[in-house]
């Protein structure tokens, strides 16, 4: 493939989802648009989680902590003045005076998470294996406790509400595409190779002159930026949320998407989100009971969670490294597939 062809394919690959996201509201009803929007936000969160968890081998359970920070930071910044006065009367004046639009507040949320990730990561990224999981879990708990107790900024445990509903499908899709392109560029660059080297064998990596701490820290920090952005998107999608929305339940649902799809592949992360989201939506509608004419099934609420759990177990038994493993859907692979297909039809 020539350079020009390659460029063309990338442009088309980006333009198609972008156009789809703009035209979607005309093609499907609002419910489906919302499902796709949530999928985009979750995909953004899962691929950024995979950066540390999958590619660098730092299995962090604190990702949702950054999502929470992103949601609250952007929420406080973009709340309208009237809502600020009624919901957050004790907000310090200098913060109350700031009012940002959706995009700037989202970027600020991401940057706050970068700073936070740096502070948290500098000590924690020295740890490996299970230790880092437990330590980052501690971070998630700290974030939750701080959110619940800083009444003046977050309304404490009460629902933070009144956030303008500005996360539309094009916004979510745009951020997702930006994240995919950025992360793909980094992961398959020398930097990304260093990440994977650290994951496979720290001692061998050090022998090659790779400094482990900065390498891990960079993955953690970049992932946290997109976690903050995703948090802002999620907050502006729901409009009202509480610290409890960003806790264990959400953590485990993101992790299951990551593991199902394949931790060591960007494509896998996206596939995981699509598979889990579509299955749970489908099952959620099916558990209301249905009528085939021949067989009719009564409503079985909660059945969807059971079926979903069984499917997860089966996937983990038969494909322990996730649906995609460490394979990517790359241009080279598509070309190879097409080539092989042609050869098969020839013979």
């Amino acid at each position, binding site marked *: 493939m020539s350079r020009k062809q390659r460029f063309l394919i990338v442009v088309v690959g980006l333009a198609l989802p972008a156009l789809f996201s703009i035209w979607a509201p005309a093609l499907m*009803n*609002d*419910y489906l648009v*919302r*499902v796709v929007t*949530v999928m985009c936000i979750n995909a953004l969160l899962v691929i950024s989680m995979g950066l540390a968890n999958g590619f660098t081998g730092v299995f962090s359970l604190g990702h949702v902590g950054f999502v929470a920070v992103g949601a609250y930071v952007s929420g406080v910044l973009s709340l309208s003045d009237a809502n600020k006065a009624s919901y957050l009367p004790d907000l310090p004046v200098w913060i109350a005076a700031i009012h940002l639009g959706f995009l700037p507040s989202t970027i600020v949320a991401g940057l706050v998470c970068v700073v936070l990730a740096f502070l948290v990561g500098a000590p924690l990224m020295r740890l490996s294996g299970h230790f880092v999981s437990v330590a980052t879990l501690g971070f998630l708990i700290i974030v939750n406790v701080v959110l*619940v*107790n800083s009444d003046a900024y977050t309304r*404490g*445990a*009460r*629902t933070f*509400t*009144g956030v303008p*509903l500005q996360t539309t499908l094009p916004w979510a899709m745009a951020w997702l595409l930006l994240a995919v392109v950025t992360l793909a560029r980094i992961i398959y660059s020398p930097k990304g190779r260093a990440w994977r080297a650290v994951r496979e064998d720290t001692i061998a990596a050090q022998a090659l002159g790779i400094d482990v701490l900065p390498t891990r820290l960079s993955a953690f920090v970049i992932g946290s930026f997109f976690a903050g952005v995703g948090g802002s998107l999620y907050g502006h*999608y*729901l*409009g*009202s*949320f*509480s*610290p*409890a*929305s960003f806790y264990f*339940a959400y953590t485990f649902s993101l992790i299951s998407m990551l593991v199902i799809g394949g931790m060591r592949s960007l494509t896998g992360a996206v596939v995981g989100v699509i598979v889990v989201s579509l299955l749970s*939506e*489908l099952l*959620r*509608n*099916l*558990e*209301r009971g*249905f*009528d*085939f004419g021949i067989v009719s099934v009564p*409503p079985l*609420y*909660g059945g969807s*969670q059971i079926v979903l759990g069984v499917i997860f177990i089966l996937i983990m038994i038969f494909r322990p490294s996730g649906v995609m493993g460490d394979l990517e859907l790359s241009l080279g692979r598509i070309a190879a597939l097409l080539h092989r297909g042609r050869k098969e039809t020839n013979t």
Partner: protein
Amino acid sequence: MKLTRRNVAGLAVMAGLAIASSSFSSRLAAADDTIKIGAPFNVTGAQSSVDSPALNGAKLKAKEINDAGGVLGKKIELVIYDTKTDPTVIASTASQLINQDKVPVALGFTDSDAVLALGTIFQTANVPFVTPGATSPKLPEQVGSQMFLACFGDNVQAAAGAEYVLNKLGGKRVYLLRDNTTEYTTLLARYFKEAYEHGGGKIVLADDYKHGDTSFTAQITKLKAFPTKPDVLYVAAQPDDIGVVVKQMRQAGLMQPIVGGDGYDTPLLLSVGGKAANNVYFSTHAFMAEDSTPGIVKFYQAYKAAYNTPPENAFAALGYDTVGLVADAITRAGTTDSAKIRDALAATQGYKGITGSISYSQGSRVPDKTVSIIGVKDDKLFLAAEVTPTWIAKP
């Protein structure tokens, strides 16, 4: 494509999905001669012990209305979804109800957080929503003109609780414990404090815990070490915590009356708390028993016949009343137009429900109702008092 084993498995999955989705769409096409009422409830998850009874009550009333000929000559159909106590699912379901099922009106939930996650979507679409059991009096103001409560607000039940503590239990000093992680419990504690102090009582010690905590040792130790002994313990708790709280307090030797809100109105209080639940009092919407008011008794028997179990709590009756309230509004509106139904709802005066009469006076969308105080004696619930509070904290 060669038919390898893997491909066969893939095809089977695809075929399954195709069949599933086709059945799904055929479901949607059916039944145009009914009046649809959206009914999202958290049948699974943390809220299930209160939402499931509410849904069962709602289904019972819908069946009774249909057996009696329906509304406007049509049968009513509850479009039920389990929203799994998950805000994302709640938001998706809200838009599914509006855009796919096209319901003109909906009812559901017993928790403020759930209602807030759905509220804005209904408000934007101008579709009225009535909650049977989310008791935050701030909801109508937070969400907007389409939001109605079929139950009293937390400020009313907290005031009733405060008056009961002061007048009947003779409690002048109270220990206040709250779950500081949910809207309902923080508001309830705040309203109680305001009403109780207004009535002349004194909160001697206040403490917090987190929803889902399994050990309350820290709070109990602090309370036992405190020099002033409180007369009464007021605990603002969610349904899934209260059994454990009560049990651990009694084990630590704290035998004072424990008082709380309608979060206690769950079978978990007796099943988890056991003997420890004696001397517990809570404010709720109605007393569910065979020796209650005639309306409740009739409901009690019908519920038992339909579900093989007595009504678990007052939320069952609230679900029942909410369907009646909505059906009544549709009848008075004479149409299934959302705007007309909303106006008819807002004009409701003296709808006779089994949990009390519902009126929305002076543009308020929170009804004035009396509060039932229920006590536990000999491992059984009894109706301790019916209270109409004299002073109520501002929402």
